[in-house]
């Protein structure tokens, strides 16, 4: 009996120390994302503990918050610096910053959500906003907007609206973005081909053909990017939202034919960078875009479909002597297709608890502080606050100014509001769409059949 009790005691002691180790790891690093439920639960415990400890022993204002975002090295450095600035201005507030890569970021965030231990401040993407907000994982910021803690007076109403669902503000825009076509300006000048803004599909395809004939350089149509380019195409035909709650919001398969036939035509005429080349590349990576990363004209593209805030990275990735231009994605009705999109948002999570108001203040700081934005320099896109945007413009380099110019003078006068955020299941539909594009590139299916399959399978996925 005694022995049993002893071993039980030892066992519980050990379990306790193990759990303690686990929760330590959980609260300090990104590791916790991988270990799943049990430790995630442990880390909530510990963060709650440390929160109350701070209340007991420190001054009442001592707050430690986790700030998490995805991005690149430049973004990591600048965000860290701006948060450090906030800490100096607000003694007692410290940050545990947790940057991650895009794909890891969402795995990590969803696991943390399952463990009720989301970071206080999170960077949010438009494609996930709806899921997170409707799952009740984000704090409603409307009261703070009304009380003035979050000052949105300088933000364009349309941009503010994009972070709202059912009239409630959940997210603050971290920077304004627009779809943009990057192209090899040096090559186009050499070939004497004009690239103008607001090209129609036919004009764009003519340019592709000319480039291919004159130089053998191909065209990189959006690959593994149905989530971006399919809605862009549909918008020109007045379909602003592809998804209903449990079905596709298009009358029939014909709506998709134009989208797929672009790929079909390009494949038949031979001027598209094929799926065999893409099999070796990281999809949608700036550095591995065939625009700047190629070994021969057959793997080179004269253009790439990206977002305006990626221009700096693209210019940095371009070989020496290659000048990169920026223009709109082709569309038969640019005014309907084009839109301004928050490149990302900042949100406060439901798990922020008593730190909620402090977290909102941080968001307000990043949104409205001139000093903070002089550090961030619009890396996430043109600042949402028009005052701040004007304030930092002179400090930006040539590339960033080109982006601001593109946003302000090319897209803004000629665009429509952004489509509503996508619901659950939409990502799987887009993945299926990408597979169909693959099949077209391999010549296994016609555009009409692909459209039919997408229509059927898409409805089936949404109905689940």
């Amino acid at each position: 009996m005694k022995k049993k009790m002893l071993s039980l005691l030892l066992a519980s002691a050990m379990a306790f120390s193990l759990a303690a180790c686990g929760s330590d790891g959980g609260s300090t690093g990104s590791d916790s994302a991988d270990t799943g439920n049990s430790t995630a639960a442990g880390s909530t415990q510990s963060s709650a503990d440390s929160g109350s400890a701070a209340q007991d022993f420190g001054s009442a204002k001592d707050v430690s918050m986790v700030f998490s975002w995805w991005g690149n090295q430049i973004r990591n450095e600048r965000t860290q610096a701006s948060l450090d600035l906030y800490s100096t201005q607000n003694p007692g507030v410290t940050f545990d910053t947790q940057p991650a890569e895009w794909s890891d970021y969402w795995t990590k965030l969803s696991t943390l959500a399952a463990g009720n231990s989301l970071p206080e401040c999170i960077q949010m993407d438009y494609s996930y906003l709806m899921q997170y907000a409707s799952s009740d994982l984000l704090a409603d910021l409307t009261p703070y907007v009304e009380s003035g803690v979050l000052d949105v007076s300088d933000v364009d109403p349309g941009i503010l609206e994009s972070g709202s669902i059912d009239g409630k503000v959940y997210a603050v825009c971290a920077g304004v973005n627009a779809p943009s076509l990057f192209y090899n300006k040096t090559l186009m000048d050499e070939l004497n081909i004009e690239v103008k803004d607001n090209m129609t599909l036919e004009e764009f395809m003519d340019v592709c053909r000319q480039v291919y004939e004159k130089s053998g350089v191909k065209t990189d149509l959006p690959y593994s990017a149905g989530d971006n380019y399919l809605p862009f195409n549909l918008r020109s035909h007045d379909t602003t939202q592809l998804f209903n709650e449990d079905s596709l919001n298009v009358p029939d398969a014909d709506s998709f034919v134009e989208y797929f036939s672009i790929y079909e035509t390009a494949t038949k005429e031979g001027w598209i960078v094929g799926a065999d080349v893409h099999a070796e590349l990281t999809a949608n990576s700036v550095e591995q875009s065939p625009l700047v990363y190629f070994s021969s004209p057959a793997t080179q593209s004269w253009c790439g479909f990206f977002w305006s805030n990626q221009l700096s990275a693209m210019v940095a990735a371009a070989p020496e002597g290659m000048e990169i231009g920026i223009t709109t994605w082709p569309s038969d009705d640019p005014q309907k297709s084009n839109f301004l999109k928050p490149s990302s948002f900042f949100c406060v999570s439901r798990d922020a608890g008593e730190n909620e108001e402090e977290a909102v203040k941080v968001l307000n700081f990043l949104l409205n502080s001139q000093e903070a934005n002089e550090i961030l320099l619009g890396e996430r896109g043109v600042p949402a606050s028009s005052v701040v945007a004007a304030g930092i413009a002179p400090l930006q380099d040539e590339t960033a100014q080109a982006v601001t110019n593109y946003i302000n003078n090319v897209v803004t006068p000629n665009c429509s509001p952004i489509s509503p955020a996508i619901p659950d299941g939409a990502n799987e539909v887009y993945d299926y769409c990408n597979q169909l594009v693959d099949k077209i590139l391999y010549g296994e299916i016609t555009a009409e059949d692909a459209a039919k399959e997408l229509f059927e399978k898409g409805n089936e996925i949404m109905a689940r």
Partner: protein
Amino acid sequence: MKKKKQRTLRQKLNTERSAGILCTLPFTIGFLAFMIVPMCISLYYSFCDYNILTPPVFSGLKNFKRMIEDSVFYQTLFVTFKFAIISVPLRLVFALIVAMLLFKSTKMTGIYRAMYYLPSIIGGSVAVAILWKRLFSLDGLINKILMSLGMKESVAWLGDTRTAIWTLIILAVWQFGSSMLIFLSALKQIPTSLYEAARVDGANGWQQFWKITLKLLTPTIHFNLVMQMINGFLAFTQCLIITQGKPLNSTLFYTVYMYQQSFLFGSTGYGAALAWVMLALIAFITWILFATKKLWVYDGGL
């Protein structure tokens, strides 16, 4: 009873039973907390509508019904079976050949053994997966070598549905080290007297290998086969990093599809259901391997 009470803590801990419990505790706790409990949770999830973000809702057999209609599910099963069934026997053959070569001791044997074992250690790593991707790319080493040998155009190994899976299979075969080591130690246990007797009877090398070596190795082959089959079905990293299932899902492994469903498409419940079906399949295959054991595995005395 009275005597027992007087024992010090040290003495109590020193008994075989408590020492045993104590020493296995780290494993037991780890096993319970990180294997059994998560497994039970995932079993529950497999009967739920669950997207990670919202709490799971019990939905009965819905996930399993969905699986029956899911064509990608069959596709990934096919790909995974193809991968395991081709790569595992090839790997074992390779392991055996290299083990036979390294069996004869020379001064360099130790170094060779370490060298041949190396791929097993590093082969599953991300770095090697990326290296592999570069090797087989359009301007990669393989194409460069083939071009210098007179091939006219470079081949898109990773971009062709017929060849992409083979790059993964070759990578798997290359990691033959652990099986090789096991074969080596088994080879050493075969008594030389058998070979001497065979030579006296006039058996040539091939007959010796066929009648003695291979026959006495069958228990080891069986063991390796079981272990490697299980590993083969669970292959993940290579696919995720090198091909991501491309092109046209021709290299989409079951585990990667599971990951996609769980974390990318927000069907964590379905992902859990997929995991349990895989567990059942692996258990079934292992059972078959054991059931057929008596047909081909020699376990008689010498």
